[in-house]
């Protein structure tokens, strides 16, 4: 069953009003006229009934399993939400990865344009390992995904004050964001860009300003010694180096960026639910936008105070 999210949201538009006046809310399916009926029982006997029309649709199951992802990181949503604030609102994609010193790096992703005169600004935030509750990922791994979706799920996690777990794998494999608490268990699956050339010719120049994470904050100015900064002098011809990080004099704290995006994803046929499982379709023009949301509720219907009602949300799939 699918319905317009906007319509459903408009029922609960004013959260303050809902908290003050609504005593209970009944959601039911009216089979007679294909309506989703949301009834708000308010104070003083006021009853507000909303009939939302819906249409039957094919239910697509996203096939994914966070347990299969080798890499994981977990942090309070606020840590990541604050980090994405530095990015321009219009930015579409962001790269998340682990840099030198086990710092988690978020960097704005720009498609390489043929017209190199109009380069865009690159913004990068690095977060120390100590801000993460869990970090199981090797240095150098990086995945690129849609920032807009990421911002959306981050604001949800932040408002619920819950930590966010990020399960990821190699570029090209989906990244799975999970938010859990006693009431709900949500999984957001985003596609990631496939890295064309693993030995990317665009190795970042070192940024020695990145401090080595230490427990005390006051040690950072000491490490970040201004006079020791090694600035690449422009007049000296700068070779865009090909090769491993070992050729670099200074350790790289940034990620090797994806040199060229390419996708091996099925082009989306519908706007909403789609298969998360990517399959190689050679020759498919890159659809660029591919996202899938899968939301599951773990509330057992038997405990509902309203009595037995039809289950409207499917149980979460797979690992649960």
């Amino acid at each position, binding site marked *: 069953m699918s319905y317009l999210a906007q319509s459903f949201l408009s029922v609960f538009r004013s959260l303050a009003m809902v908290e003050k006046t609504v005593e209970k809310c009944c959601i039911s399916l009216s089979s007679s006229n294909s309506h989703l009926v949301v009834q708000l029982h308010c104070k003083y006997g006021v009853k507000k009934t909303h009939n939302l029309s819906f249409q039957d649709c094919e239910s697509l199951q996203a096939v994914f399993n966070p347990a299969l992802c080798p890499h994981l990181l977990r942090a*309070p949503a*606020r*840590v990541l939400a*604050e*980090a994405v*604030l*530095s990015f*321009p609102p219009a930015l579409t994609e962001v790269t998340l990865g682990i840099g030198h010193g086990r710092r988690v790096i978020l960097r704005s992703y720009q498609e390489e344009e043929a017209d*190199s*005169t109009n*380069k*865009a*600004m*690159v*913004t*990068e*935030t*690095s*977060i*120390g390992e*100590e*801000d993460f509750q869990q970090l199981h990922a090797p240095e150098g791994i990086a995945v690129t995904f849609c920032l807009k979706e990421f911002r959306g799920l981050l604001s949800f996690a932040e408002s619920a004050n819950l930590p966010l777990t990020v399960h990821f794998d190699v570029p090209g494999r989906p990244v799975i964001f999970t938010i859990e608490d006693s009431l709900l268990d949500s999984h957001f699956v985003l596609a990631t860009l496939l890295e064309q050339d693993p030995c990317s010719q*665009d190795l*970042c*120049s070192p*940024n020695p*300003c*990145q*401090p080595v*994470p*230490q*427990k005390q*904050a006051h040690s*950072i*100015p000491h490490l*970040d010694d*201004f006079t020791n*900064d090694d*600035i*690449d*002098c*422009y*007049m000296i011809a*700068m070779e*865009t180096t090909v090769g491993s990080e070992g050729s670099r004099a200074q350790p790289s704290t940034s990620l090797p960026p994806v040199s060229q995006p390419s996708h091996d994803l099925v082009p989306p046929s519908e706007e909403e639910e789609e298969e998360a499982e990517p399959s190689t379709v050679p020759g498919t023009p890159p659809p660029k936008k591919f996202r899938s949301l899968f939301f599951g509720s773990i509330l057992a219907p038997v405990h509902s105070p309203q009595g037995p009602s039809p289950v409207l949300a499917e149980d979460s799939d797979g690992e649960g």
Partner: protein
Amino acid sequence: MKFRAKIVDLACLNHFTRVSNMIAKLAKTCTLRISPEKLNFILSDKLASGGVSMWCELEQENIFSEFQMEGVSAENNAIYLELTSENLSRALKTAQNARALKIKLTNKHFPCLTVSVELQLSSSSSSRIVTHDIPIKVIPRRLWKDLQEPSVPDSDVSIYLPALKTMKSVVEKMKNISNHLVIEANLNGELNLKIETELVCVTTHFKDLGNPLLSSESASQSRHPEDMAEVHIDIKKLLQFLAGQQVTPTKAVCNIVSNRIVHFDLLLEDISLQYFIPALS
């Protein structure tokens, strides 16, 4: 060529951010000139800007706690960079409560001005570092002659400006009626903004503005105080200038050369801004 500078004082950082926001509103692309004592934001009067030119100057030691630069050569100890102004103001916007901000010239894949911000966040025990790589174009020495400080013309009338916010709201409404406007002033402290179309003429009068003291060689010495010096200018250019002024300037003077050019000379605390709008031909 090398450049690195650091700001640690929050007030200096906010000041620099405000200047950068203003520049972003005045010019989409501008030239940043770095010299041992100063930083300049320059817009030269090319066709692209429609003949408008801008010269903004700040003393580096008033902003930066550390400042090191090495120009192209010893005799030409300056660096001229072209950048998109909005990039700098966006980068500085993320530094609102920063502990420190560093700017340096780097070459990561392409020449950039790297702005590195050290933030102290409530959600984190350690500092957070945000870096922005602003792509720049180094301007070769042969083009430097077009980017020098414009000479201040001998003006016919020099007058102090009224509140810029008032001027802006007036000009904003006038823009809907006409594409060009006449700005005129006299040595009696009177300034008028006039628009004229087939159907309507609208004039806004500002009085008692005061005129700066004339220098002895000034051409306007023999001028009758009531005589108006006027310039026809493109209203959008005036509006763009006014829209860029977010703070009340310490000093604001308007110099008019009849039928040639209007020159706005502003002082924002310690930063000077000069903006030239030529007459419509």
